[in-house]
């Protein structure tokens, strides 16, 4: 019994160290800023516009990956094919590369390269546009959604699909009526992870689209030009809004 207690005490102590490390800076930020400055920041047009742009760009990136990445996740979960390991490794590369390097790669591809010229001809510009912001966020955060969805699909026994089809459902109907609803939690978690990861993206975005300013760029801009007291309320506002949205989505998901 005494040994059991020692074990628990050691583990609780170690857990508390990391939990406090993660929590205290956030709490400290809010204490330093205070409610008055926080409210002022939230009412400032430049601030709320940049926060809204950040939320919107990341959300569009998630939507795009839902349409394209979920089919990829399904294929990876259900089929064994030549080069599958390579594709899976490739998906993890964006998580490893420095974000500024990812920004440079996107700039080279979508602004200067032949692909960029083609996309420009159909009206898709990346330099200093919302599309560019979305691309930068998507490049670095898509693996969270794709890998989440892949794990979700793996948990749905392929027998459910066979069963639905014996009952008359086509493959597409089976996917939408059985596979997707039963993988919903993992997909939603992946989407939330991707979305929240996109909100914090700075390195790649600042290379491809300094303007219009998303919140992380605005925080950096104010910090370098005006100092800590001007950037901290923006940072606190951004954290408050994104945590609120994140919790709201989690709450809704748990209810249904």
């Amino acid at each position, binding site marked *: 019994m005494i040994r059991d207690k020692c074990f628990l005490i050691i583990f609780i102590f170690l857990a508390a160290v990391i939990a406090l490390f993660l929590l205290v800076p956030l709490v400290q930020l809010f204490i330093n800023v205070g409610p008055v400055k926080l409210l002022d920041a939230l009412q400032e047009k430049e601030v709320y516009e940049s926060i809204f742009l950040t939320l919107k760009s990341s959300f569009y990136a998630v939507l795009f990956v839902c349409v394209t990445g979920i089919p990829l996740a399904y294929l990876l979960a259900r089929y064994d094919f030549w080069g599958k390991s390579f594709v899976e490794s490739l998906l993890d590369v964006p998580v490893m590369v420095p974000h500024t390097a990812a920004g440079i790669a996107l700039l080279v591809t979508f602004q200067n390269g032949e692909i960029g010229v083609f996309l420009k001809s159909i009206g898709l510009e990346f330099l200093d546009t919302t599309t560019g912001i979305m691309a930068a966020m998507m490049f670095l955060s898509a693996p969270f959604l794709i890998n989440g969805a892949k794990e979700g699909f793996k948990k749905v026994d392929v027998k*459910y699909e066979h069963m639905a089809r014996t009952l008359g459902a086509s493959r597409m109907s089976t996917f939408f009526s059985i596979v997707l609803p039963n993988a919903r939690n993992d997909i939603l978690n992946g989407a939330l992870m991707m979305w929240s990861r996109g909100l914090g993206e700075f390195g790649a975005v600042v290379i491809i689209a300094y303007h219009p300013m998303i919140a992380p760029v605005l925080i950096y801009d104010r910090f370098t030009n005006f100092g800590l007291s001007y950037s901290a309320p923006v940072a606190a506002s951004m954290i408050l809004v994104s945590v609120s949205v994140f919790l709201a989505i989690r709450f809704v998901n748990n209810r249904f």
Partner: protein
Amino acid sequence: MLNVENLFLQKGEFSLKKLSFNVEKNSYFVILGKTGSGKTMLLESIAGINEIEGKIFFEEEEITTLPLQKRGFGFVYQDFVLFPNLTVKENIVFSSRYKQIIDADALFLDIINFLQIEHLLERKTTHLSGGEKQRVAMARAIYSRPKLLLLDEPLSAVDPTFRNAIMKSLKEIVKRYDTTIIHVTHNFREASYLADHIAVMMDGSIIEQGESNRILNHPKSIEVAKFLGFKNIFPSSLLNENTLENVFSIDPNAILFSYTSSLTKYCFKCVIEDIMGISDHYKVFARVKEHLFFVKVPKHMFAKLDLKEGIKCYLCIKKKDIVFI
């Protein structure tokens, strides 16, 4: 009705080896085999889940490459595979989203009454017992009005106390819903109660098929006899009879011990080698020449005969109890 011709399927090391058989309309066809013999793989191939070599005909039409949703076969898996995102009722009527069900409302009411699942309809499937899940899975399959119902070990995950009731329902389904059933199982008792016809599978091959009574009472091969639980399989030469069959089998309950050699037509000198007491009988192992017979002796008979290990007596068999294989 269903004709399977030279069905071949390789999956890793295992294969279904050019299987051929026919299933007649409105019959109850049981595929009997040990775990790992390829029964489920065969059933999935008939359903259209696996791509196969060979041909499958259903009502004279070739369906070998027909997508499974167009075959119109019902399927019940061993673990029932009820959709967890739907309620019991939604599971049962799932097929009505994709095809027109004739007399859907009347059929639905009939099924839920027949399988006694009315009280479960609004429940989530994750909270059902094994027996309840089995009945819901059956209801879902029947509601789709299948011309052929494929059952993969449907009783293996069901509490033994409900098994007899469910077996009774299964037997009734063929007539009540005008369908045909292919049922795979490793349990020959299930097969003996349900089947009109039986195919015995071993290691990806059908080694014997035919009318249920014939297979269960007079198997043609030793492997099938052993699988069906036949004991005391010995060469026919022991009986000094001229028969075409090489071996015979005798039920352990049908063997008698005696101290005289004239009790029945066949009486052999034997030595009692081993005795094991079980609740209501004794298991006695008696050696006749180089053959060891297994005999079940009721307690009262055991006491009367005063059998002991090492004693010599006669082991007697009636001719009518002998099964030649």
